[in-house]
């Protein structure tokens, strides 16, 4: 095989030695390693010895980069010559909540330029929290003739014109997945840019976009793409139009409906129900904007084999949800709005014994006068009925320590526990004590816990518990919690597998920041904002740990010595050169 011959002459100074060391030819090793998909396994493999490092890098086709600034595109291209698929993540997660300045960075363009030169056969690009312009999308569309899959999640900087370029030029496109982005929606004509000869699309998600698309163009597109298995429509597509699409695409596995609320005649309703019942492969349902309870029964034929139901855009009442869930016995993942209230969650516990993931989003997060939503009772009810629950994201306005203790007793297998008590620093509403014991129960009982988000009034005791018990914890989010540096020190000292730590509005200062000195190089990143960290503390960190990038973002009008927002991450690419003036690299 050509590549390995080239490799031997370049990389091993003494070819006799290398043949003695490896017990079978490189080609075989590469073949074996090419079956490894997990990037963590591959990282481990590459550390075994030089031969394995080389075999691994030549056989790797997909690279995952969790922080785009931890490495440069040139370094990636040098190490991995045969990449066909790239996943890149950019901005810190708190940029989702407007805590990161506008022009912070994470621009994809420099990467695309390198990829165009080194990976002309690139097929897939998946981006999360990156900035991408229309020019970049056009460049992408024309530079990679084999390009197949584009997925953009929480990205910004582009408009529908960029999508038009992709639709026009990517003749082999199988996936176009546009999710939750800050997109400049200039109209729906991009969809009409797919040529009439184009038939390869398997995944189309444009639920993010609000403007009307040309329905005839969409209908023809769906009709001729016989392998389409994921179709997520935007709100502008009506129920009647949905029915017409489904008639031509009964093979769909995942469907995102458009608006689910127009007035239907009886005949139209029957036709919709019939079209849905033909979709025997459907396991995921999404969208359902403005869903009217009276039309939900049309979904019943599909519900029997549904495993993922995303109702987080449908403000359903508890009785409407209950009626629907009675038909969904196989549900594993459920996302809802808190309009379903505790009664709705009781129905979850009663009807969905196989449930593994539950996310409850607030319908009115900023309206203080709303007094309904869900409480601890709903969560407890789910835990009794769903012992397999291991992923939860729960927004509520009240919680108790006792309730959380019961919940984790019923569901000890939590891997992801994200609890958001929406009023910052709120105690147990019955005992008025801090919520320390709640999270103590979580970390003591749930030994497999990987991700934790804490909320409510919390003292350092919570962090003592976390440091002592959460030995598998990788991601921790903290807000408005803790009493002193000691809290963060416990976490930095105890959580050996910690990779991502994000903290806001906590009384942790320089002592806390510096207690993690040894740890940050084994982590992806640290975020601290509105804490007690000063510029001097950050400078000290930067000086002691030259392989870390320490970036400070200052707010207008703040004290010169305060480090308002700090972002620390390991990098082999050195300090970045594209930081805007508001970001100081120390």
């Amino acid at each position, binding site marked *: 095989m050509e590549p390995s011959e080239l490799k031997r002459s370049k990389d091993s100074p003494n070819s006799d030695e290398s043949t003695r060391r490896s017990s079978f030819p490189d080609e075989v090793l590469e073949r074996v390693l090419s079956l490894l998909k997990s990037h963590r396994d591959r990282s481990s493999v590459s550390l075994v010895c030089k031969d394995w490092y080389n075999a691994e890098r030549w056989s790797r086709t997909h690279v995952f980069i969790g922080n785009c600034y931890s490495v440069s595109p040139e370094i990636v291209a040098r190490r991995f010559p045969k990449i066909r698929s790239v996943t890149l993540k950019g901005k810190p997660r*708190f940029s*989702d*909540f*407007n*805590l990161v300045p506008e022009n912070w960075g994470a621009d994809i363009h420099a990467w695309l330029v390198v990829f165009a030169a080194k990976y002309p056969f690139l097929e897939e690009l998946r981006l999360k929290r990156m900035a991408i312009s229309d020019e970049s999308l056009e460049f992408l569309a024309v530079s990679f003739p084999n390009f197949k899959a584009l997925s953009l999640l*929480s990205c910004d900087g582009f408009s529908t014109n960029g999508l038009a370029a992709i639709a026009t030029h990517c003749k082999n496109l199988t996936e176009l997945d546009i999710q*939750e*982005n*800050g997109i400049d929606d200039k109209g729906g004509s991009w969809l009409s840019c797919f040529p009439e000869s184009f038939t390869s699309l398997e995944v189309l998600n444009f639920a*993010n976009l609000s403007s009307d698309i040309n329905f005839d163009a969409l209908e023809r597109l769906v009709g001729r793409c016989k392998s389409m298995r994921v179709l997520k429509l935007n709100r502008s597509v009506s129920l009647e139009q949905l029915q017409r699409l489904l008639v031509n695409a009964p093979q769909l596995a995942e469907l995102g409906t458009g*608006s689910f*609320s*127009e*007035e239907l005649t009886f005949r139209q309703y029957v036709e919709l129900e019939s079209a849905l019942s033909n979709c025997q492969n459907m396991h995921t349902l999404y969208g359902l*904007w*403005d869903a*009217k309870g009276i039309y939900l029964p049309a979904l019943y034929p599909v519900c029997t084999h549904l495993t993922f139901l995303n109702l*987080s*855009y449908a*403000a359903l009442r508890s009785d409407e949800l209950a009626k629907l869930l009675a038909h969904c016995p196989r549900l594993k993942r459920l996302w809802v*709005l808190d309009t379903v209230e505790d009664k709705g969650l009781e129905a979850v516990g009663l009807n969905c014994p196989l449930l593994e993931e539950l996310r409850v*989003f*607030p*319908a*009115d*997060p*900023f309206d*203080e*006068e709303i007094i309904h939503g869900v409480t601890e009772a709903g969560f407890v009810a789910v835990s009794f009925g769903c012992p397999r629950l291991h992923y939860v994201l729960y*927004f509520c306005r009240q919680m108790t320590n006792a309730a959380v203790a019961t919940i984790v007793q019923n569901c000890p297998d939590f891997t992801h526990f994200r609890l*958001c008590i*929406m*009023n*910052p*620093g709120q105690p147990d509403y019955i005992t*008025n004590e*801090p919520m320390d014991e709640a999270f103590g129960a979580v970390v003591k009982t749930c030994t497999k816990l990987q991700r934790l988000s804490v909320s409510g*009034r919390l*003292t350092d005791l919570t962090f003592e518990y976390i440091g002592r018990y959460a030995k598998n914890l990788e991601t921790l*989010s903290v*807000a*408005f919690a803790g*009493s*002193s*540096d*000691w809290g963060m020190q416990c976490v930095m000292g105890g959580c050996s597998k910690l990779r991502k730590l994000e903290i*806001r*509005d*906590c*009384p942790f*200062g320089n002592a806390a920041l510096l207690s993690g000195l040894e740890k940050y190089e084994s982590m992806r990143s640290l975020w601290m904002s*509105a*804490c*007690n960290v000063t510029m001097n503390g950050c400078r000290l960190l930067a000086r002691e740990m030259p392989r870390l990038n320490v970036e400070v973002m200052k707010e207008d009008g703040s004290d010169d010595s*305060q480090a308002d927002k700090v972002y620390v991450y390991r990098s082999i690419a050195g300090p970045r050169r594209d930081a805007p003036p508001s970001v100081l690299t120390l």
Partner: protein
Amino acid sequence: MENDLNLKATELRLGLPGSDEPERQMIPRPNKRTLSDIVSEGSRSTTEEDHQDTAPPAKVQIVGWPPVRSYRKNCLQGKKDEVEGGTGMYVKVSVDGAPYLRKIDLKVYRSYPQLLLALENMFKLTIGAYSEREGYNGSDYAPTYEDRDGDWMLVGDVPWEMFISSCKRLRIMKGSEARGLGCV
């Protein structure tokens, strides 16, 4: 005390006469630390502030909290509790003296000020501020609506939710007729 009562009587509010809306103030709750308290406190213990607050919460608007993605917030913006009439709540709007009527979607607005501003922009006129005693006195125009009973009512008297569930059409009255309404 007497001064307070007088002020309350002439206060510009939207609500039923006699009802008392909790005031929205930008002051922190007394038993919670403000952001600046948290930052400057350092290691001060939380046990000092354990007394319970029973008054309705008056909160500081905190950036990025609760942690709900902007995308999700925008999606739910147009969403309100169910109002009969299917998607959108389009009602006819007539303005005295205008050659043709317009239609607006009441579901797009969340409060009277938003609605009135939109009407002012749409028809290029000034409606002015509502007061319980004087109606829209002080301007040439008064917004009125026809309710389910067929009666013509002054916009602003009832709570917003009640208004949008009972409003069938809008009419912006002009001139002496409008001024007269304020003195009923």
